[in-house]
């Protein structure tokens, strides 16, 4: 994912997003979603900016950010692997795929590798149960997956 950091673009985009959403009540979540789309994560500065302009305390906003699985407080790796944890995927071996991917990338679910190359996330059901097990690699869905196919999809990105 191409994303800029808060440091490189400054806070102007954050202010612009907050300003646009403020016209509507209860828009903290959509504003956070847009901020994350722009930056790839929620920069701490964004939490304070939203607090200033809405009057909602920063701790409450931090509470919202950490409550919802979608929000991240750290930037993502260059390649994002999302492993579906739905029932059908579980039955068809998603845990084995996950173990395999963890051992070749050296990171566990929920982690980003030190070189910033990979992030592995565990996601709730992607809803493609008939093609289970499935994994998305950089938002492209791979269905009917085997551990070896997963390994080759990820090894390709390592070169």
């Amino acid at each position: 994912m191409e994303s800029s950091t808060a440091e490189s673009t400054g806070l102007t985009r954050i202010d612009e997003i907050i300003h646009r959403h403020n016209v509507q009540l209860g828009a903290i979540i959509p504003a956070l979603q847009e901020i994350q789309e722009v930056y790839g994560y929620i920069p701490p500065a964004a939490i304070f900016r939203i607090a200033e302009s809405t009057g909602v305390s920063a701790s409450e906003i931090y509470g919202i950010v950490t409550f919802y699985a979608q929000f991240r407080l750290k930037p993502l790796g260059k390649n994002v692997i999302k492993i579906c944890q739905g029932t059908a995927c579980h039955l068809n071996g998603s845990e084995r795929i996950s173990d395999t991917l963890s051992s070749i990338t050296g990171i566990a679910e929920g982690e980003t590798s030190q070189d910033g190359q990979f992030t592995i996330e565990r996601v709730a059901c992607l809803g493609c149960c008939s093609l289970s097990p499935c994994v998305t690699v950089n938002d492209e869905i791979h269905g009917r997956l085997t551990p070896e196919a997963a390994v080759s999809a990820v090894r390709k990105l390592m070169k």
Partner: protein
Amino acid sequence: MTNNWIVKIGLASCGIAAGGQKVFDAFEELIEEKNLDVELRRTGCVGMCYNEVLVEVFSPAGEYTCYGRVTPEDAGEIVESHIMGGRPADRLVIPAEDIDSFMSGQRRIVLRNCGVIDPESIDDYIAADGYRAIETVLSGTAPEAVISEITDSGLRGRGGAGFPTGVKWGFARDAQGSPKYVICNADEGDPGAFMDRSVLESDPHSVIEGLLIAGYAIGAEAGYIYVRAEYPLAIKRLEIALVQATARGFIGENILGRGFSFDIVIRQGAGAFVCGEETALMLSVEGKRGMPRIRPPFPAQEGLWGKPTNINNVETLANIAWIINNGASLYSAYGTEKSRGTKVLALAGKIARGGLIEVPMGTSLREIVFDIGGGISSGLGFKAVQLGGPSGGVIPAAMADTTVDYESISQTGAIVGSGGLIVMDESACMVDVARFFLHFTQDESCGKCTFCRIGTLRMLEILEKIAGGTGSPEDIALLEGLAAGVRKGSLCGLGQTAPNPVLTTLRYFREEYEVHINAKKCPAKKCQALITFEIVPDKCAGCGLCAKNCPAGAITGEKKKPHIIDPEACIRCGLCRSLCRFDAVVVN
């Protein structure tokens, strides 16, 4: 009647996951390159996910051919042989009997347009009777009459709870306070359920029309559609549909000149399972942490922003226009006495024909799994189905004659829920299944109620102990005691039903727990701590494929000599077993 060729390609998420967009692009390129008179159409999900990518071809004479598992490379063959040469590409044709057996037990009301129309075309929806119901309703049907029509149809909430929809609407209509709101709950979070995703991706206007009618019936002026952020295509198609419907005057001020005004806003859920619970969902729409609150007051009295609010699930709303157009009695003719109409089910797991189906309530599990679903895909025996996701339970194969309706399924300890039906063969371990669901609910517990927050964690720890080979005989009683506590001590339905997967597996597969505890064995050979991988020297050809690919580096051996797995280093991923061309890797 058009007199050119029509090619339709299923492009819902499952079709795209199977490579549908590439197939679409290949056809588009070929049609242009060969300058053919072919109309290429996009459609949603017809439900035959097991055959994705699906390509349907209609000849100018009206002959119908359905191709399955089409790859971009196959496009040329279909175009040249069939469209240019007049001979269907037999190799790829799905036999008519196969389609018949999948379709004939179904009655498609909610899915009436899915896989038939282009979900991004309002004209397609209108041509299929779309927006006729809202027109009928606004031309002189009193809101109360709409509510009694829905009540008479017997429609009950399809999100899981099964509360009569018409009665729910009546509460919101009678409630004091304004403005009023209607919300479409599209926060489909149950693992194994994809009916709402499919309907939103394949026929978004039917949900919008249902929401409009609900809004008119209860006297609301605004509606929200709360949809999971994990469903980007559903969100995109809803956005397109809202723009189109607004442009045609079905949404906005003074709709169709009948004095009814209504706006619809999409809100994206941010990844919290608990937000499928209605009071949590409303808090989330308000921009807060989605944590359920005590009821009463019910949303009909005090809902969104403290105002009267009606919440319905996607599938419930997709039924509404059909009921208005066809009459309550036609709808209630389907189903059982207390569970009228049809239910959409998402069939997945070890089933031959997995996909999306819609059957009259009262259809047996046996008919669903074997007649429609084509039986077990793996060649192993049928063990159980799991119905209703984390709030539901496991029903053993011996009870396959149980019918799918709210009452019969509740008696088994499972629930119909939103309709995710996972078929399991003998390779499924019931302790593992219970552990899987408890892991999910424990992870998703919002943390408000102690029993749900800590009780599910303690239950999960016990299940992990049992699966890890360190369980003790008193663990089963402890699990049952905790289950009773979580059920009683949780505020919302999600906490109250969280023990169901454990209770049903204990009820029907108790001996499997006992074998894990007493013999330290996993009969299904699933629990990783209780199994070992081994190479049978006689079968091993020493090709080295396993050693080369082993992610843990646990396999050693000389070329052309039998290899050995180091049990200490082995992570039991099973990659060696699936790679071995000589069946030399066995599980003990």
